């Protein structure tokens, strides 16, 4: 059983009401954070010709943006810990908007790297972390569902931005499109304004003097947290292999002789399945049977990815690829929906902000290195199947790791909980008998609430 986080939060999260508006706002912020860098690929061809650069130089634009987004994680966490989610998201929206507007006047590719990549990336980081954090403050009992719904923002915004960007490009060229996209990303400020800080009925915990300057801003003691370390190690390995199969799906299809439109359709199928699986996973993760053991559910999802990639080279023809795209869509959607829910489950909502900042900056390396390494593998072996087998291994290993380590972790947590319960019982037994009864009731009602 995960530790009863309600007691550590110090208040009862609403689990509804304005919370659903916050979920919608988080949907927008998370959607832009993940989908925006991917959606810019529509403009690459023309920008490449305009600045007379190679394809890899222009592809770097997305990478720089993604890298900045992940690297700025800790800064975002510190700001959220200090000021709350709302101001950070609004500043984030302004940064992305500013970055895009400046980029529309760009005179060199470096100018674009700085404006779109660095400034834009920071802005997106200031959207992602606070959006995830605020869900943890508004929800506890329905948190997996809320997380699943919010994470659905990514495929939905991507499906909207892709044709929109094409339309903007046809109407205004790349400069005008960047200007208008700057305006569109300002809507993250609207999302931020919806992120009302939750009403806390109890006073917040005052930081003790024993904490160092850094620790007051970001919780580095997380590195001693067992659950956090399990999550971190598993995720680092997982992120090496998570994005490469998506990047190479269309090229793999074309390599097999499938035409360009059918290859693009595979990605659409994948995105569509992903879109529906995320809220469904959130719903399933919320059920009485799964919620207490949600780490196993996540481990299953990760392993499913691994198995899926192993099967890919074995499935013949276009029908096989369609099947693969669908199963991959399910597996990927499940992982994404549970990705941050499991972290919240392990470290608790209070420490989540610092945890996610630390996780994203460490994940920066595998996220960036994954697809190029896969590409290099492809060049070396000339056959896609080795790359898929490797990605399969890179997903299956963390999956199994999560199963084993979380089994161990759950056992330890149950032991600690039992010890805490007996300690509390002994303490109250020493005080007075009537109080003893009410304390037990409190503990049991909290755990019952969690089970529901």
């Amino acid at each position, binding site marked *: 059983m995960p530790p009863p986080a309600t007691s550590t939060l110090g208040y009862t999260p609403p689990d509804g009401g304005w919370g659903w508006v916050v979920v919608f706002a988080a949907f927008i912020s998370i959607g832009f954070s993940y989908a925006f860098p991917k959606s810019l690929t529509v403009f690459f061809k023309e920008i490449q*010709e*305009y600045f*007379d650069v190679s394809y890899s130089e222009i592809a770097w634009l997305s990478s720089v943006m993604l890298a900045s987004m992940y690297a700025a994680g800790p800064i975002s966490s510190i700001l959220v810990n200090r000021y709350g989610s*709302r*101001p950070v998201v*609004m500043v984030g929206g*302004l940064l992305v908007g500013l970055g895009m507007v400046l980029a*529309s006047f760009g005179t060199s590719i470096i100018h674009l790297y700085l404006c779109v990549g660095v400034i834009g990336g920071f802005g997106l980081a200031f959207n992602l972390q606070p959006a995830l954090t605020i869900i943890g403050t508004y929800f506890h009992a329905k948190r997996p569902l809320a997380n699943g719904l919010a994470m659905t923002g990514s495929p939905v915004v991507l499906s909207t931005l892709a044709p929109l960007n094409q339309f903007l490009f*046809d*109407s*205004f*060229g790349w*400069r*005008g*499109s960047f*200007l*208008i996209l*700057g*305006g*569109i990303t*300002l*809507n993250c*400020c*609207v999302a931020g*304004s*919806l992120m*009302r*800080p939750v*009403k806390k009925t109890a006073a917040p915990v005052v930081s003790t003097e024993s904490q160092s300057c850094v620790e007051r801003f970001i919780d580095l003691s997380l590195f001693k947290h067992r659950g956090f370390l399990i999550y971190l190690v598993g995720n680092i390995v997982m992120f090496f292999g998570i994005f490469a199969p998506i990047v190479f799906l269309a090229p793999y299809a074309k390599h097999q002789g499938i035409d360009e439109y059918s290859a693009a359709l595979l990605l659409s199928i994948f995105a569509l399945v992903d879109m529906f699986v995320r809220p469904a996973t959130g719903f399933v993760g919320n059920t009485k049977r799964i919620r207490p053991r949600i780490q196993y559910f996540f481990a299953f999802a990760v392993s499913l990815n691994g198995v899926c990639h192993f099967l890919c080279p074995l499935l013949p023809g276009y029908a096989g690829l369609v099947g693969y795209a669908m199963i991959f869509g399910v597996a990927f959607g499940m992982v994404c929906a549970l990705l941050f829910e499991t972290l919240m489950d392990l470290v608790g909502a209070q420490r989540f902000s610092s945890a996610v900042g630390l996780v994203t900056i460490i994940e920066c390396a595998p996220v960036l290195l994954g697809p190029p390494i896969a590409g290099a593998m492809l060049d070396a072996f000339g056959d896609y199947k080795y790359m898929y087998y490797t990605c399969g291994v890179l997903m299956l290993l963390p999956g199994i790791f999560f199963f084993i380590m979380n089994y161990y972790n759950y056992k330890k947590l149950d032991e600690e909980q039992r010890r805490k319960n007996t300690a509390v019982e002994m303490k109250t037994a020493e005080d007075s008998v009537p109080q003893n009864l009410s304390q037990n009731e409190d503990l049991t009602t909290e755990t019952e609430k969690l089970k529901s």
Partner: protein
Amino acid sequence: MSVSCLHFSSQLLLLLSFHRHVNTISENTTSITEPRVETPAPKTPPLAPLIPTQTAQRNVLLTGENHTEEIEVVNPVVLNLECIWPGNGKRLPNITGYWTKDGQTIETSYSNIQLENDLYRLIREFTIMNEDDLGNYSCLFGPKAKVKFIVAAPHLGEVRDKPIVSYVGDSVVMVCKMDEKKPQPISWNWYIQNGTNKVQIESDSNAHKYKITKDGNKTKLLVYNLTESDSGVYYCGAVYAVAISMGYMQLRVITYYEPLKPFMGILAEVVILVAVILLYEKIGSRKHGESAGTEENKDETNNLSHRDNDVAVAHSSTRQRKV
């Protein structure tokens, strides 16, 4: 193909043969003229002399009533086209056959065709020297059967059908590519549409306005210092010995005001929404604060001042941006 096998042979035979004769000069090429190409005389590559010394042959066995054949021509060539028709079962001993070019009947081509071995044959030689000789050549067996040969220079692939958009004062790059698998052109030309004429763009004299790069089967036209009058249709031509294969693209030059209008619209929408959301919250919490006790009032005022700061921050930053 719906007519049963009783009438035709069941296989679709397509006989292709290309022979190159070094010494072939037929009666159609008595005048050895330079092919009329709209460029300064191209450097003659060693394999393609100006006199068509190449001969190509296409034989088509027609099953059904219609067939279309595409023939790609790069250098001047003498084209030997043959149409073979098994007839439609009536087995007439004589029928009239003739050739057309681009729908116009070639008067001298009328001939009486005898039925030999159950087949009617029409054969004719065409000299393809320049652009005027390219087109659709068809052989017709009476009114019944037709084979169309489309004789053309290699087509450009991947030409953008939507207009390229650029801005006043900015520059633009237009690209034309010939497929890797197709023969490489001798050179590339660029033209701009002026009324109904195509005017060739010279890159040397106007180096500060136009720049043309030619790179085998790819070419780029760079236009600097764009003005609205630069909008229009541009043509790129792949120069081959026989003709120039054209592709076209449209350039649209707009001012910065065009994207600025939707941008300002979206900006206004964002500012209005943020203001409405924050004001609604302020009003809502003030109402709640009035009806509640002192302790909650303290929380509310803290939240309110926090929110006031947010509104002020949002408004001041947007005010700066509007300028």
